[in-house]
Protein backbone atom coordinates (compact mmCIF):
# COMPACT_ATOMS: atom_id res chain seq x y z
CA UNK A 1 0.00 0.00 0.00
CA UNK A 2 1.10 3.54 -0.73
CA UNK A 3 2.58 5.24 2.33
CA UNK A 4 0.64 8.10 3.77
CA UNK A 5 2.93 10.71 5.26
CA UNK A 6 1.93 12.79 8.25
CA UNK A 7 3.14 16.33 7.63
CA UNK A 8 3.04 17.50 11.22
CA UNK A 9 3.64 21.16 10.52
CA UNK A 10 0.82 21.34 8.01
CA UNK A 11 -1.52 19.77 10.53
CA UNK A 12 -1.25 22.30 13.34
CA UNK A 13 -3.29 25.49 13.57
CA UNK A 14 -1.67 28.21 15.59
CA UNK A 15 -2.66 31.81 16.31
CA UNK A 16 0.86 33.17 16.42
CA UNK A 17 1.77 34.69 19.74
CA UNK A 18 2.83 38.35 19.51
CA UNK A 19 5.51 37.71 22.14
CA UNK A 20 8.17 35.05 22.78
CA UNK A 21 7.15 32.44 25.33
CA UNK A 22 10.18 30.13 25.21
CA UNK A 23 13.78 31.19 25.61
CA UNK A 24 17.10 29.51 26.25
CA UNK A 25 19.92 30.76 28.42
CA UNK A 26 23.20 29.93 26.66
CA UNK A 27 25.16 30.48 29.86
CA UNK A 28 23.36 27.49 31.36
CA UNK A 29 22.93 25.27 28.27
CA UNK A 30 25.48 22.45 28.01
CA UNK A 31 24.27 21.15 24.64
CA UNK A 32 22.98 17.83 26.05
CA UNK A 33 20.36 17.55 23.26
CA UNK A 34 17.49 16.51 25.53
CA UNK A 35 15.31 19.28 24.11
CA UNK A 36 16.23 18.25 20.53
CA UNK A 37 15.24 14.65 21.23
CA UNK A 38 11.96 15.40 22.93
CA UNK A 39 10.39 18.07 20.74
CA UNK A 40 7.76 16.28 18.64
CA UNK A 41 7.65 19.28 16.30
CA UNK A 42 11.46 19.24 15.79
CA UNK A 43 11.84 22.89 16.75
CA UNK A 44 15.22 22.62 18.50
CA UNK A 45 18.72 22.36 16.98
CA UNK A 46 22.23 22.38 18.40
CA UNK A 47 24.44 25.08 16.94
CA UNK A 48 28.03 25.54 18.16
CA UNK A 49 27.31 23.26 21.09
CA UNK A 50 24.26 25.19 22.30
CA UNK A 51 20.53 24.64 21.90
CA UNK A 52 18.73 27.03 19.57
CA UNK A 53 15.03 27.28 18.89
CA UNK A 54 13.86 27.66 15.31
CA UNK A 55 13.11 31.31 14.61
CA UNK A 56 9.50 30.64 13.61
CA UNK A 57 8.78 28.22 16.50
CA UNK A 58 5.75 30.36 17.42
CA UNK A 59 4.04 29.11 14.25
CA UNK A 60 4.36 25.41 15.18
CA UNK A 61 4.89 24.98 18.91
CA UNK A 62 2.11 22.94 20.55
CA UNK A 63 2.90 24.28 24.03
CA UNK A 64 3.47 20.75 25.31
CA UNK A 65 6.17 21.96 27.75
CA UNK A 66 8.36 18.90 27.11
CA UNK A 67 11.49 20.92 26.32
CA UNK A 68 11.21 22.82 29.60
CA UNK A 69 10.68 19.61 31.53
CA UNK A 70 13.64 17.65 30.12
CA UNK A 71 16.25 20.37 30.56
CA UNK A 72 18.30 19.32 33.59
CA UNK A 73 20.28 22.56 33.55
CA UNK A 74 17.33 24.90 33.95
CA UNK A 75 18.38 26.62 30.72
CA UNK A 76 14.91 26.79 29.17
CA UNK A 77 12.31 29.34 30.21
CA UNK A 78 8.77 28.40 29.22
CA UNK A 79 5.42 30.00 29.82
CA UNK A 80 2.23 29.82 27.77
CA UNK A 81 1.45 32.34 25.02
CA UNK A 82 -0.90 35.14 26.11
CA UNK A 83 -4.55 34.16 26.58
CA UNK A 84 -6.28 33.55 23.25
CA UNK A 85 -3.02 32.89 21.34
CA UNK A 86 -1.15 29.75 20.41
CA UNK A 87 -2.19 26.24 19.49
CA UNK A 88 -5.81 25.56 18.47
CA UNK A 89 -7.20 22.05 18.83
CA UNK A 90 -10.62 21.83 17.23
CA UNK A 91 -10.67 18.05 17.48
CA UNK A 92 -8.80 17.27 20.64
Amino acid at each position, binding site marked *: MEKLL*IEKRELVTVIESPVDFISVDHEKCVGCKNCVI*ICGMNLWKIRDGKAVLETDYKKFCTECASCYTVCDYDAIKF*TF*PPGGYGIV*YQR*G
Partner: protein
Amino acid sequence: MNNYDLIVVGGGPGGSAAAKEAADAGLKVVILERGRFCGEKNSSGFGLAPKAARDFDYIKDLDVPSLWSTKFGVMHIVEPMPSNSERMTWGLTPPKRNSYPQASEYLVQMMYRPEFDQWMADLATKAGAELKLATLATDVIWEGKNVAGVVDGKGNTYRAPVVIAADGAHSLMANKAGIRKRWDKDQIAVLATVDFEADPERIAEYCGDTNVHIFMGPDRGGYCTICRDGFHIGSRPAKTLQSEIDAGRNLSTRSVIDNVQLDFIQRLIKATRARPREFQLHFLPWLKTFNERIFTGGLMLTGDAAGVPEPFMAEGVWQAMYSSRLAAQVAVRAHGDKDFSKAYLKKYMEELKVSPVGVDFTSGTVLRDFFAAWTSQTFYDLFDNLADAMFYSMLTFAEPHAHGMLRVPAIMVDMIPQLLFMSRYYFPIAEEASRDKIKGFLAGTKMVAPMLQNMMKATAGGK
Protein backbone atom coordinates in the same frame (compact mmCIF):
# COMPACT_ATOMS: atom_id res chain seq x y z
CA MET B 1 -10.45 44.77 41.87
CA ASN B 2 -12.31 41.49 41.33
CA ASN B 3 -13.30 39.79 44.56
CA TYR B 4 -14.52 36.21 44.67
CA ASP B 5 -14.98 33.37 47.16
CA LEU B 6 -13.12 30.95 44.90
CA ILE B 7 -10.89 31.31 41.86
CA VAL B 8 -10.61 28.30 39.57
CA VAL B 9 -7.66 28.35 37.17
CA GLY B 10 -8.36 26.20 34.10
CA GLY B 11 -11.63 25.48 32.33
CA GLY B 12 -10.99 21.76 31.68
CA PRO B 13 -13.25 19.04 33.12
CA GLY B 14 -11.56 19.45 36.50
CA GLY B 15 -11.98 23.22 36.70
CA SER B 16 -15.60 23.14 35.60
CA ALA B 17 -16.51 20.32 38.01
CA ALA B 18 -14.99 22.35 40.86
CA ALA B 19 -16.70 25.57 39.79
CA LYS B 20 -20.11 23.93 39.47
CA GLU B 21 -19.82 22.27 42.88
CA ALA B 22 -18.81 25.51 44.60
CA ALA B 23 -21.33 27.70 42.75
CA ASP B 24 -24.13 25.25 43.61
CA ALA B 25 -23.08 25.61 47.25
CA GLY B 26 -23.48 29.39 46.95
CA LEU B 27 -19.89 30.56 46.49
CA LYS B 28 -19.01 33.39 44.12
CA VAL B 29 -16.74 31.68 41.62
CA VAL B 30 -14.67 32.70 38.60
CA ILE B 31 -12.99 30.35 36.11
CA LEU B 32 -9.95 31.63 34.19
CA GLU B 33 -9.28 29.74 30.96
CA ARG B 34 -6.45 30.60 28.59
CA GLY B 35 -8.16 29.16 25.48
CA ARG B 36 -10.65 31.15 23.39
CA PHE B 37 -13.03 28.30 24.15
CA CYS B 38 -12.83 25.48 26.66
CA GLY B 39 -11.04 22.48 25.18
CA GLU B 40 -9.00 24.54 22.70
CA LYS B 41 -5.78 23.46 24.41
CA ASN B 42 -6.73 19.90 25.24
CA SER B 43 -6.23 16.75 23.25
CA SER B 44 -7.26 13.25 24.21
CA GLY B 45 -9.57 11.71 21.61
CA PHE B 46 -11.35 10.93 24.53
CA GLY B 47 -13.34 8.23 26.28
CA LEU B 48 -15.26 9.18 29.41
CA ALA B 49 -15.38 6.32 31.90
CA PRO B 50 -18.80 4.95 32.94
CA LYS B 51 -17.98 5.80 36.54
CA ALA B 52 -18.48 9.47 35.64
CA ALA B 53 -22.21 8.83 35.13
CA ARG B 54 -22.28 6.83 38.36
CA ASP B 55 -20.62 9.54 40.43
CA PHE B 56 -21.84 12.75 38.77
CA ASP B 57 -25.60 12.96 38.35
CA TYR B 58 -25.35 15.56 35.62
CA ILE B 59 -23.32 13.27 33.33
CA LYS B 60 -26.49 11.25 32.79
CA ASP B 61 -27.77 14.22 30.74
CA LEU B 62 -24.56 14.53 28.71
CA ASP B 63 -25.46 15.30 25.13
CA VAL B 64 -22.94 16.62 22.59
CA PRO B 65 -22.93 16.04 18.82
CA SER B 66 -19.93 13.69 18.66
CA LEU B 67 -20.98 11.55 21.65
CA TRP B 68 -20.80 7.86 20.79
CA SER B 69 -21.02 5.28 23.55
CA THR B 70 -18.68 2.37 22.96
CA LYS B 71 -20.57 -0.91 23.05
CA PHE B 72 -18.01 -2.71 20.90
CA GLY B 73 -14.27 -2.37 20.73
CA VAL B 74 -11.63 -4.53 19.08
CA MET B 75 -8.23 -5.56 20.36
CA HIS B 76 -5.70 -6.24 17.59
CA ILE B 77 -2.51 -8.17 18.16
CA VAL B 78 -0.22 -6.96 15.38
CA GLU B 79 2.78 -8.83 14.03
CA PRO B 80 6.34 -7.68 14.70
CA MET B 81 7.68 -4.85 12.58
CA PRO B 82 8.03 -4.37 9.67
CA SER B 83 4.90 -6.46 9.06
CA ASN B 84 1.82 -4.43 9.85
CA SER B 85 -0.68 -7.24 9.61
CA GLU B 86 -2.79 -8.63 12.37
CA ARG B 87 -2.16 -11.93 14.06
CA MET B 88 -5.30 -12.04 16.14
CA THR B 89 -8.25 -9.80 16.93
CA TRP B 90 -11.07 -10.11 19.36
CA GLY B 91 -14.02 -8.06 20.43
CA LEU B 92 -14.38 -6.13 23.64
CA THR B 93 -17.82 -5.59 25.13
CA PRO B 94 -18.86 -4.32 28.54
CA PRO B 95 -19.25 -7.23 30.97
CA LYS B 96 -22.86 -8.05 31.82
CA ARG B 97 -22.30 -8.50 35.52
CA ASN B 98 -21.17 -5.24 37.01
CA SER B 99 -21.61 -3.26 40.17
CA TYR B 100 -23.56 -0.44 38.48
CA PRO B 101 -25.65 -0.20 35.31
CA GLN B 102 -23.54 2.14 33.15
CA ALA B 103 -20.55 -0.18 33.37
CA SER B 104 -22.65 -2.86 31.66
CA GLU B 105 -24.03 -0.49 29.07
CA TYR B 106 -20.83 0.90 27.57
CA LEU B 107 -17.05 0.71 27.86
CA VAL B 108 -16.54 4.47 27.50
CA GLN B 109 -18.37 7.45 26.01
CA MET B 110 -16.30 8.74 23.11
CA MET B 111 -16.41 12.41 22.07
CA TYR B 112 -14.27 15.40 21.13
CA ARG B 113 -12.82 17.38 23.99
CA PRO B 114 -13.91 20.89 22.88
CA GLU B 115 -17.52 19.70 22.91
CA PHE B 116 -17.22 18.02 26.30
CA ASP B 117 -15.18 20.77 27.93
CA GLN B 118 -17.62 23.46 26.79
CA TRP B 119 -20.60 21.39 27.93
CA MET B 120 -18.99 21.10 31.36
CA ALA B 121 -18.20 24.83 31.48
CA ASP B 122 -21.84 25.60 30.58
CA LEU B 123 -22.95 23.61 33.63
CA ALA B 124 -20.66 25.71 35.79
CA THR B 125 -21.87 29.02 34.37
CA LYS B 126 -25.52 27.93 34.67
CA ALA B 127 -24.80 27.27 38.35
CA GLY B 128 -23.63 30.89 38.59
CA ALA B 129 -19.87 30.74 37.99
CA GLU B 130 -18.29 33.42 35.84
CA LEU B 131 -16.09 32.20 32.95
CA LYS B 132 -13.28 34.36 31.62
CA LEU B 133 -11.94 32.99 28.34
CA ALA B 134 -8.64 33.91 26.64
CA THR B 135 -7.34 34.71 30.12
CA LEU B 136 -3.97 33.31 31.15
CA ALA B 137 -3.28 33.23 34.87
CA THR B 138 0.39 34.15 35.19
CA ASP B 139 1.07 34.52 38.90
CA VAL B 140 -0.37 34.17 42.37
CA ILE B 141 -0.88 36.89 44.95
CA TRP B 142 0.40 36.13 48.44
CA GLU B 143 -0.99 37.35 51.72
CA GLY B 144 1.41 36.14 54.38
CA LYS B 145 1.70 32.39 53.96
CA ASN B 146 -1.48 32.03 51.93
CA VAL B 147 -2.23 32.44 48.27
CA ALA B 148 -5.00 35.03 48.15
CA GLY B 149 -5.57 35.51 44.45
CA VAL B 150 -4.08 35.40 40.98
CA VAL B 151 -2.87 37.82 38.34
CA ASP B 152 -3.58 37.42 34.63
CA GLY B 153 -1.36 38.18 31.66
CA LYS B 154 -2.91 41.62 31.23
CA GLY B 155 -2.13 42.55 34.82
CA ASN B 156 -5.71 42.18 36.12
CA THR B 157 -5.92 40.90 39.68
CA TYR B 158 -8.50 38.48 41.03
CA ARG B 159 -8.79 38.01 44.77
CA ALA B 160 -10.24 35.12 46.74
CA PRO B 161 -9.23 33.40 49.96
CA VAL B 162 -8.90 30.10 48.11
CA VAL B 163 -7.73 29.08 44.63
CA ILE B 164 -8.28 25.74 42.89
CA ALA B 165 -5.55 25.25 40.30
CA ALA B 166 -7.00 22.87 37.71
CA ASP B 167 -4.60 24.21 35.13
CA GLY B 168 -3.55 20.93 33.61
CA ALA B 169 -0.36 18.92 33.41
CA HIS B 170 2.06 21.81 33.03
CA SER B 171 0.78 23.83 35.95
CA LEU B 172 2.05 27.41 36.11
CA MET B 173 0.12 27.79 39.35
CA ALA B 174 1.96 24.87 41.01
CA ASN B 175 5.18 26.58 39.98
CA LYS B 176 4.22 30.06 41.16
CA ALA B 177 2.81 28.75 44.44
CA GLY B 178 6.15 27.07 45.13
CA ILE B 179 4.73 23.53 45.12
CA ARG B 180 6.59 22.11 42.12
CA LYS B 181 8.98 23.60 39.65
CA ARG B 182 8.43 20.90 37.05
CA TRP B 183 7.60 17.19 36.89
CA ASP B 184 10.44 14.71 37.11
CA LYS B 185 11.08 13.20 33.71
CA ASP B 186 9.77 9.82 34.80
CA GLN B 187 6.50 11.28 36.08
CA ILE B 188 5.22 12.59 32.78
CA ALA B 189 4.58 11.46 29.22
CA VAL B 190 4.01 13.47 26.07
CA LEU B 191 1.44 11.86 23.79
CA ALA B 192 1.02 12.43 20.08
CA THR B 193 -2.29 11.96 18.28
CA VAL B 194 -3.38 12.44 14.69
CA ASP B 195 -6.98 13.30 13.92
CA PHE B 196 -8.36 12.27 10.53
CA GLU B 197 -11.35 13.73 8.75
CA ALA B 198 -13.52 11.11 7.03
CA ASP B 199 -16.82 10.62 5.24
CA PRO B 200 -19.52 10.07 7.91
CA GLU B 201 -21.61 7.76 5.70
CA ARG B 202 -18.63 5.58 4.95
CA ILE B 203 -17.69 5.51 8.63
CA ALA B 204 -21.19 4.34 9.50
CA GLU B 205 -20.98 1.68 6.80
CA TYR B 206 -17.46 0.46 7.47
CA CYS B 207 -17.32 0.69 11.25
CA GLY B 208 -20.85 -0.25 12.25
CA ASP B 209 -21.14 -0.11 16.03
CA THR B 210 -17.43 -0.48 16.71
CA ASN B 211 -15.65 2.74 17.56
CA VAL B 212 -12.59 1.77 19.58
CA HIS B 213 -9.57 -0.24 18.39
CA ILE B 214 -6.54 -1.09 20.49
CA PHE B 215 -3.29 -2.34 18.96
CA MET B 216 -0.58 -4.35 20.65
CA GLY B 217 2.52 -6.02 19.32
CA PRO B 218 6.24 -6.26 19.94
CA ASP B 219 7.49 -2.70 20.21
CA ARG B 220 4.14 -1.59 18.82
CA GLY B 221 1.02 -0.23 20.39
CA GLY B 222 -1.61 2.43 20.15
CA TYR B 223 -5.26 3.03 19.60
CA CYS B 224 -7.81 4.32 17.12
CA THR B 225 -10.97 5.96 18.38
CA ILE B 226 -13.65 6.66 15.83
CA CYS B 227 -15.97 9.62 15.88
CA ARG B 228 -18.84 10.12 13.51
CA ASP B 229 -16.94 12.33 11.08
CA GLY B 230 -13.38 11.20 11.63
CA PHE B 231 -11.03 9.30 13.87
CA HIS B 232 -8.01 9.67 16.12
CA ILE B 233 -4.87 7.59 15.94
CA GLY B 234 -3.03 7.50 19.21
CA SER B 235 0.44 6.46 20.20
CA ARG B 236 1.26 3.80 22.67
CA PRO B 237 1.62 4.92 26.26
CA ALA B 238 4.09 3.29 28.65
CA LYS B 239 6.79 5.80 27.81
CA THR B 240 7.72 8.70 30.03
CA LEU B 241 9.95 11.59 28.99
CA GLN B 242 12.75 9.73 30.77
CA SER B 243 12.37 6.66 28.57
CA GLU B 244 12.25 8.84 25.47
CA ILE B 245 15.48 10.57 26.48
CA ASP B 246 17.06 7.20 27.27
CA ALA B 247 16.04 5.93 23.84
CA GLY B 248 17.34 9.11 22.21
CA ARG B 249 14.19 9.69 20.18
CA ASN B 250 10.63 10.87 20.58
CA LEU B 251 8.97 7.46 20.69
CA SER B 252 5.42 8.72 21.02
CA THR B 253 5.57 10.80 17.86
CA ARG B 254 7.38 7.97 16.05
CA SER B 255 4.80 5.47 17.25
CA VAL B 256 1.78 7.46 16.07
CA ILE B 257 3.32 7.86 12.64
CA ASP B 258 4.11 4.13 12.54
CA ASN B 259 0.56 3.32 13.61
CA VAL B 260 -0.82 5.06 10.54
CA GLN B 261 0.90 2.28 8.57
CA LEU B 262 -0.94 -0.52 10.36
CA ASP B 263 -2.92 -2.61 7.88
CA PHE B 264 -6.19 -1.96 9.67
CA ILE B 265 -5.64 1.80 9.69
CA GLN B 266 -4.62 1.87 6.04
CA ARG B 267 -7.84 0.03 5.16
CA LEU B 268 -9.88 2.38 7.34
CA ILE B 269 -8.31 5.39 5.63
CA LYS B 270 -9.10 4.03 2.18
CA ALA B 271 -12.59 2.81 2.98
CA THR B 272 -13.71 6.06 4.62
CA ARG B 273 -11.81 8.41 2.24
CA ALA B 274 -9.99 9.83 5.24
CA ARG B 275 -7.46 12.68 5.29
CA PRO B 276 -5.25 13.81 8.17
CA ARG B 277 -6.80 16.89 9.81
CA GLU B 278 -4.92 17.74 13.02
CA PHE B 279 -1.67 16.75 14.72
CA GLN B 280 -1.64 17.02 18.49
CA LEU B 281 0.99 16.76 21.21
CA HIS B 282 -0.06 16.88 24.84
CA PHE B 283 1.34 16.18 28.29
CA LEU B 284 -0.06 13.44 30.47
CA PRO B 285 1.08 12.99 34.07
CA TRP B 286 1.80 9.36 34.77
CA LEU B 287 2.83 8.92 38.36
CA LYS B 288 3.58 5.61 40.03
CA THR B 289 2.62 6.73 43.50
CA PHE B 290 0.06 9.12 44.93
CA ASN B 291 1.36 12.68 44.91
CA GLU B 292 0.89 14.36 48.28
CA ARG B 293 2.29 17.76 47.29
CA ILE B 294 -0.98 19.17 46.04
CA PHE B 295 -1.80 21.98 48.44
CA THR B 296 -0.42 25.02 50.17
CA GLY B 297 -2.02 27.89 52.09
CA GLY B 298 -4.98 29.14 50.04
CA LEU B 299 -4.40 26.85 47.04
CA MET B 300 -5.21 23.28 45.99
CA LEU B 301 -4.02 21.51 42.84
CA THR B 302 -6.51 19.19 41.17
CA GLY B 303 -6.72 16.96 38.07
CA ASP B 304 -3.64 16.76 35.87
CA ALA B 305 -2.05 19.61 37.80
CA ALA B 306 -2.11 17.30 40.83
CA GLY B 307 -0.89 14.30 38.83
CA VAL B 308 -3.96 12.16 39.52
CA PRO B 309 -4.36 10.21 36.22
CA GLU B 310 -4.34 6.58 37.28
CA PRO B 311 -1.03 4.72 37.11
CA PHE B 312 -2.07 1.97 34.69
CA MET B 313 -3.81 3.40 31.61
CA ALA B 314 -3.41 7.05 32.65
CA GLU B 315 -7.14 7.69 32.44
CA GLY B 316 -7.59 11.19 33.82
CA VAL B 317 -10.91 12.93 33.19
CA TRP B 318 -12.99 11.24 35.87
CA GLN B 319 -10.00 11.63 38.21
CA ALA B 320 -9.86 15.36 37.38
CA MET B 321 -13.59 15.74 38.07
CA TYR B 322 -13.45 13.73 41.27
CA SER B 323 -10.42 15.48 42.76
CA SER B 324 -11.74 18.91 41.76
CA ARG B 325 -15.17 18.32 43.27
CA LEU B 326 -13.51 17.21 46.49
CA ALA B 327 -11.32 20.33 46.51
CA ALA B 328 -14.44 22.47 45.99
CA GLN B 329 -16.13 20.77 48.92
CA VAL B 330 -13.10 21.47 51.09
CA ALA B 331 -13.15 25.10 49.87
CA VAL B 332 -16.82 25.41 50.90
CA ARG B 333 -16.00 23.98 54.35
CA ALA B 334 -13.00 26.32 54.63
CA HIS B 335 -15.37 29.24 54.06
CA GLY B 336 -17.63 27.93 56.82
CA ASP B 337 -14.69 27.59 59.21
CA LYS B 338 -12.98 30.76 57.93
CA ASP B 339 -9.70 28.88 57.72
CA PHE B 340 -7.72 28.71 54.45
CA SER B 341 -4.38 27.74 55.94
CA LYS B 342 -2.11 25.03 54.62
CA ALA B 343 -2.94 22.92 57.68
CA TYR B 344 -6.66 23.16 56.89
CA LEU B 345 -6.35 22.43 53.16
CA LYS B 346 -4.28 19.35 53.95
CA LYS B 347 -7.66 17.69 54.48
CA TYR B 348 -8.16 17.77 50.73
CA MET B 349 -5.00 15.74 50.17
CA GLU B 350 -5.82 13.32 52.95
CA GLU B 351 -9.36 12.72 51.72
CA LEU B 352 -8.23 12.32 48.12
CA LYS B 353 -5.59 9.80 49.13
CA VAL B 354 -8.15 7.40 50.62
CA SER B 355 -10.74 8.03 47.87
CA PRO B 356 -11.03 5.77 44.78
CA VAL B 357 -8.64 8.19 43.01
CA GLY B 358 -5.91 7.59 45.60
CA VAL B 359 -6.62 3.90 46.03
CA ASP B 360 -5.80 3.27 42.36
CA PHE B 361 -2.20 4.10 43.20
CA THR B 362 -1.80 1.28 45.70
CA SER B 363 -0.83 -1.20 42.99
CA GLY B 364 1.71 1.36 41.80
CA THR B 365 4.74 0.10 39.98
CA VAL B 366 3.49 -3.44 39.37
CA LEU B 367 0.68 -2.13 37.20
CA ARG B 368 2.97 0.22 35.36
CA ASP B 369 5.57 -2.45 34.62
CA PHE B 370 2.86 -4.80 33.43
CA PHE B 371 1.50 -2.23 31.06
CA ALA B 372 4.97 -1.43 29.75
CA ALA B 373 5.41 -5.14 29.06
CA TRP B 374 2.26 -5.22 26.92
CA THR B 375 4.22 -4.29 23.87
CA SER B 376 7.00 -6.83 24.43
CA GLN B 377 7.87 -9.86 22.32
CA THR B 378 6.87 -12.13 25.21
CA PHE B 379 3.42 -10.67 25.30
CA TYR B 380 3.07 -11.11 21.56
CA ASP B 381 4.24 -14.73 21.81
CA LEU B 382 1.55 -15.38 24.37
CA PHE B 383 -1.19 -14.42 21.94
CA ASP B 384 0.58 -16.07 19.08
CA ASN B 385 0.53 -19.42 20.90
CA LEU B 386 -2.90 -18.80 22.31
CA ALA B 387 -4.40 -18.39 18.85
CA ASP B 388 -2.83 -21.67 17.77
CA ALA B 389 -3.95 -23.47 20.87
CA MET B 390 -7.51 -22.26 20.55
CA PHE B 391 -8.13 -22.67 16.88
CA TYR B 392 -5.59 -24.93 15.22
CA SER B 393 -7.27 -28.25 15.83
CA MET B 394 -10.73 -26.93 15.06
CA LEU B 395 -9.85 -25.18 11.85
CA THR B 396 -6.97 -27.12 10.40
CA PHE B 397 -7.19 -28.36 6.84
CA ALA B 398 -3.65 -29.65 7.12
CA GLU B 399 -4.32 -32.91 8.86
CA PRO B 400 -7.17 -34.87 10.43
CA HIS B 401 -8.72 -32.85 13.24
CA ALA B 402 -7.87 -35.46 15.82
CA HIS B 403 -4.19 -35.11 14.93
CA GLY B 404 -4.56 -31.35 15.17
CA MET B 405 -6.01 -31.81 18.65
CA LEU B 406 -2.93 -33.76 19.67
CA ARG B 407 -0.79 -30.78 18.82
CA VAL B 408 -2.64 -28.57 21.29
CA PRO B 409 -0.99 -29.87 24.49
CA ALA B 410 2.41 -29.32 22.86
CA ILE B 411 1.44 -25.75 22.03
CA MET B 412 0.31 -25.26 25.61
CA VAL B 413 3.69 -26.42 26.89
CA ASP B 414 5.32 -23.91 24.58
CA MET B 415 3.27 -21.23 26.32
CA ILE B 416 4.63 -21.86 29.81
CA PRO B 417 7.25 -19.07 29.71
CA GLN B 418 4.66 -16.55 28.63
CA LEU B 419 2.15 -17.77 31.21
CA LEU B 420 4.78 -17.43 33.92
CA PHE B 421 5.51 -13.95 32.66
CA MET B 422 1.82 -13.10 32.94
CA SER B 423 1.60 -14.53 36.42
CA ARG B 424 4.57 -12.46 37.55
CA TYR B 425 2.54 -9.30 37.01
CA TYR B 426 -0.97 -10.54 37.35
CA PHE B 427 -0.77 -12.24 40.71
CA PRO B 428 0.64 -9.34 42.72
CA ILE B 429 -2.06 -7.08 41.27
CA ALA B 430 -4.84 -9.56 41.90
CA GLU B 431 -3.37 -10.25 45.32
CA GLU B 432 -3.67 -6.59 46.16
CA ALA B 433 -7.26 -6.50 44.93
CA SER B 434 -8.62 -9.59 46.66
CA ARG B 435 -6.01 -10.60 49.11
CA ASP B 436 -8.00 -12.98 51.26
CA LYS B 437 -9.86 -14.82 48.55
CA ILE B 438 -6.88 -15.96 46.58
CA LYS B 439 -4.13 -16.04 49.13
CA GLY B 440 -4.31 -19.81 49.49
CA PHE B 441 -4.39 -20.31 45.76
CA LEU B 442 -1.40 -18.06 45.25
CA ALA B 443 0.63 -19.81 47.90
CA GLY B 444 0.32 -22.97 45.84
CA THR B 445 1.15 -21.27 42.56
CA LYS B 446 4.15 -19.52 44.01
CA MET B 447 5.60 -22.87 45.00
CA VAL B 448 4.94 -24.41 41.63
CA ALA B 449 6.08 -21.48 39.48
CA PRO B 450 9.84 -21.72 40.26
CA MET B 451 9.75 -25.46 39.67
CA LEU B 452 8.10 -24.94 36.30
CA GLN B 453 10.60 -22.24 35.53
CA ASN B 454 13.48 -24.66 36.18
CA MET B 455 11.85 -27.28 34.02
CA MET B 456 11.47 -24.68 31.30
CA LYS B 457 15.16 -23.89 31.31
CA ALA B 458 15.83 -27.51 30.53
CA THR B 459 13.24 -27.80 27.79
CA ALA B 460 13.57 -24.28 26.32
CA GLY B 461 12.87 -23.96 22.62
CA GLY B 462 10.05 -22.57 20.52
CA LYS B 463 7.24 -24.42 18.89
